[in-house]
């Protein structure tokens, strides 16, 4: 089961039109490359972690997969069907198999609906004929699964803490028994102890239901804990993709190396002697990305070739791919 690819993304590109302030209506808007040429395969029961700094296209990638933002080109194959070429009504069939969890737990719940209504909404949308008692029992099942008491169904989102709200969000995502959940920074807005609870909950559920997860975060230690594969993004481009252990022990791309060296180690002696690779400067503008390798402006290994030739995304060893001319 776990070897079966459920989601394949091939050369996905997302561009946004950006028009500067004061532009005339007929001025051609500039293209912003939010996601550039991304491909990966996700098997059932696996977790793909996506990391990268703010504005590198993590969320856009996730939204392009579920067609919330239109893709410029590429394919999103869900069990062999290209979602991007389906019409809206055909896509609805697949919506129940892919669910999403969001960053801000409170904002992702409608403040005027009670918890029962919120959790039952996907069920009522896709199976409108389900009887009231069935809906009730499904809701209380799924609430128990995420560690919420089912007598809370009549409460409203503002009566819950952030962690509880996130559990409600997870319950809503689970009620249709999906095959893939896309988690868009689900723990960034929570404090550390709650983060651990939510991540463990996701992992428990994943095992129980054989879920595949796409887990977006900017905290590498969280991602390491949950992921089987990790993808590092920089300015909309894939920089490195490898198994979770491999990428931590053996980071090949200078950017990944710098990111991993920045993860604090909870041991003062090691932490003190650790070599930190600092990345200087700011993220370049995605409207006007650097020529050649997108990371060259901040890379300590950059040579002339980097500005001329874009490095290919190549497999450096088994299940470890990297985009760098000078990878280790």
């Amino acid at each position, binding site marked *: 089961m776990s070897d079966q690819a459920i989601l394949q993304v091939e050369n996905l590109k997302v561009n946004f039109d950006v028009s500067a302030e004061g532009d005339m209506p007929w001025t051609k808007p500039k293209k912003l490359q939010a996601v550039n040429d991304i491909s990966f395969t996700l098997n059932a029961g696996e977790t793909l972690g996506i990391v990268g700094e703010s504005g590198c296209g993590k969320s856009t990638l996730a939204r392009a997969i*579920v067609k*919330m933002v239109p893709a410029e080109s590429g394919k999103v194959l869900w069990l062999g069907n290209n979602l991007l070429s389906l019409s809206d009504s055909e*896509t*609805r069939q697949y*919506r*129940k198999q*892919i*669910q*999403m969890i*969001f*960053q*801000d737990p409170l*904002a*992702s*719940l*409608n*403040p*005027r*609906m*009670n*918890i029962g209504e919120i959790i039952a*909404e*996907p069920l009522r*949308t*896709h199976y409108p004929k389900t009887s009231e008692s069935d809906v009730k029992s499904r809701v209380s099942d799924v609430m128990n699964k995420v*560690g919420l*008491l089912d*007598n*809370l*169904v*009549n*409460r*409203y989102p*503002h*009566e819950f803490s952030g962690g509880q709200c996130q559990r409600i*969000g997870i319950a*809503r995502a689970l009620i249709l028994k999906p095959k893939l959940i896309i988690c868009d920074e689900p723990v960034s807005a929570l404090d550390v102890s709650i983060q651990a*609870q939510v991540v*463990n*909950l996701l992992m*428990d559920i994943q095992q129980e239901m054989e879920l595949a997860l796409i887990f977006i975060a900017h905290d590498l230690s969280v991602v390491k804990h949950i992921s089987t594969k990790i993808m590092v993004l920089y300015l909309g481009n894939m920089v490195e993709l490898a198994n979770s252990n491999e990428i931590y022990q053996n980071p090949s791309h200078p950017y990944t190396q710098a990111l991993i060296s920045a993860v604090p180690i909870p041991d003062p002696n090691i932490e003190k002697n650790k070599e930190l690779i600092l990345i200087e400067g700011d993220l370049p503008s995605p409207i006007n990305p650097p020529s050649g390798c997108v990371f060259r402006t901040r890379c300590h290994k950059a040579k002339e070739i980097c500005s001329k030739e874009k490095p290919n995304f190549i497999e450096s060893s088994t299940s470890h791919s990297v985009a760098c001319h000078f990878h280790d």
Partner: protein
Amino acid sequence: MIVANKKKIKDMAENFSESGAGRSLWKDARIRFIQNKAATISLFVLLAIVSFSFIGPYFAVWSYEQIDWNAMGSAARVGMPSIESGHYFGTDDLGRDLYSRVIQGTQISLMVGVLGASVAVIVGTLYGATSGYLGGKTDQIMMRIVDILMSIPYMFVLILLLVVFGRSIGMLFIGIGLLSWLDMSRIVRGQTLNLKNKEFIEAAKVTGVSDFKIITRHIVPNLLGIVAVYATLLVPGIILAESFISFLGLGVQEPSTSWGALIKEGSGTISYDTEWQLLFPLAFFVVSLFCFYFIGDGLRDALDPKER
């Protein structure tokens, strides 16, 4: 870890919550509204005025069309307010009972206000929510139409309509309803733009909820707060507009009457020592408007506590 704690949490929760019923935002708002004295009193006064306009006729001795021939032409001497003659509020210059006339005026003015506001609210909310939710070119076009309609002077159009198509309450409704939804649609559109990017809308979209359901289930209920506030402030605005039109003599036609028409008659005869002809309708008018504004204020405070 979670499973281990579950029993403990369950015990605790059972001790704390008896019913498990939550407090919705509406319930919260109701509590805050009741705590606002001016608004609560206004609500009661307004309810009293409304029920007076329905119960009042049973106590009337004279109907609003009946003419007291004794008082006709000598309202200043005979037609003053008195219990004995049955003219509790006095009579007007033609000898008609002011008590019945005020009741009738109240009914008509409130009806115009409430119906006009409901038309504006329904049309404005749907239009604004659609425009804001769809966005892009549709939004641009829909809002430019609103801009164009808004640039036409409101009173001018209303007066023209009444002059060209004849004076009737129906025409008055159409005229007022046609133009008063514009502000509403703008307010609603702004709020919708704000709501549309919230994550719960996105969550609904990812789940596959249709656009229509998203508008009715997720956007409109979250707009209702601001809509309720604006609607209560719109009612007195429309009553004022109607009264102004009636004051000009273009609105409600005899034998029907409204607050504006009564105030006009009363102000015309003020020099003949018949001040009650002005004061009674004016008092109802002013008190009702005050009540609407206080209620609107109270609702606003109750519905978004952050703004205070």
